[in-house]
């Protein structure tokens, strides 16, 4: 291998290395790293209370509970008012 060929080979190797480094520093990689961190921090945060306590798939849960609550205490209050009056 001549000196010129060796230089060319070294230049190519440097270019390849530079490409690898640039790929490593490229935005897609950082997006991946960022998304892992984001996912981690999101998983450690408490869930949104609205989704947690009032599930979208079952909107009738809080409504049915409210109906039971109102009916129960409504009856109780009426009877109570009758008694004290």
């Amino acid at each position: 291998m001549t000196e010129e060929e060796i230089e060319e080979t070294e230049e190519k190797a440097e270019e390849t290395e530079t490409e690898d480094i640039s790929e490593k520093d490229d935005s897609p990689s950082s997006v991946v790293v960022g998304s892992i961190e984001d996912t981690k921090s999101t998983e450690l945060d408490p869930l949104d209370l609205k989704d947690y306590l009032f599930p979208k798939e079952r909107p009738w849960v809080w409504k049915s509970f409210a109906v039971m609550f109102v009916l129960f205490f409504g009856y109780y209050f009426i009877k109570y008012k009758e008694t004290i009056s």
Partner: protein
Amino acid sequence: MVENISIVSIILDIMVLLFILYLGQKKDDRTWTQKLGATMMCWFLLCHLAMNIAYGQFYAQIFLGEWYDTVLHMVLETLWKAAIVGFIVTTLSTPMPLFKNVKNYKIGVIFGLSFALLESYYTWGPPTGEDWFVYFWPFWSLAPAVLMVMLSYLAWNYLTSPEGAGDRTEALTDRAGLFAVMALILWGGKNWFDWVGFFKSSEFFYSNGTPGTSTLYLVADLIGKFETGMIVLPMFVLSVGSVIYLRNRGSVLLGGTILGFLILGFIHFWFFSGESQDYNSTARFFNEEDIRESFILLTHGTMQSLARPLIILFLVVRFGMVQTEHAPDLSRAMMIMSLAGAMSVITEILQPMLGISQLISGFFLGAILAFEIERKVMKAMQPPDDEENTDWVLINGEGIGLVKWTNTAFGMYIFATIILGILIAKEVIV
């Protein structure tokens, strides 16, 4: 022959308390919500133990009519309030904190404990001598009622969930719901046997005050009735929910247990007058030849005395508040003693009803040991391996610090009450 059961409850309270304290000291991967839950359960057990000793087993030996009686009564009430706040805190943080900002949490706890201290001043201090004074507990009645609303909703959300742990949210909902169901049984269970006659008994509609005399009477009555209602409402919510749960998931254990409360409550109300046996009564001698008295003790009495420490034991193991692998032999012994103690009391109470001797409890204990039932029970209580256990992140603070802060706040609150009690009892504050 006469019996009392509060001594078994005292022993169970002490055993479970020491069990949690011992395992709680071990270094492991428990999250801050689990550590917070463990310490809050200790506060409850301390309160339950004190109530059993003071108002139950040793009432005559403790309350001698001296000045310190006032301090003791105040401290016992204070422990109840700490237990209530402790359960509110645990409900707000198990398995996921319903708050994100530590600052808001601290403001809430400080407000609650300060209001509770002010209530002690009102109930025992100089206001009692005023003409306008009305004897009632605004905090002690409101706080458990609010707790029961929260627990009832979490339990309803869980019991009516059709698919179970389908996704992350549903899995957390299920865990919160299971905690809520057990907490509801712990707090309200004993009264469900007595108050099935809610819609029949006139006492629920009786006014404690004189209408029109003062607005404070009306406020006191409304708060008292709200508390009464919130002990009865969860029974109906859980009963309806358990039917849906049985239909959706076919799990007989939980649904059957809840419906069992309702059925026993109806029997209690219709056939056995619906009377209750509380701390003082479970420590008092009773006529074990009487089926009615035995039934009352079997329902309200056992729920108040035996079931509470056992439910706490279930909660701390099931929700990973302590890890039993640190001391497998101790954990096994804990289970055997709990089962044997409960079995002995229940067979004793069943004696006049079924005509069986209490001696049969020895055979049950033999069966527990022979078939290693305690190992199966302990294994069933463990949290599932694939269950999510997140160390949740908070704003303006971190979890472990919050655990220490909460316990310090409880300690300071009790210390402040003791000082206040001494000042009131010694008539320094007039």
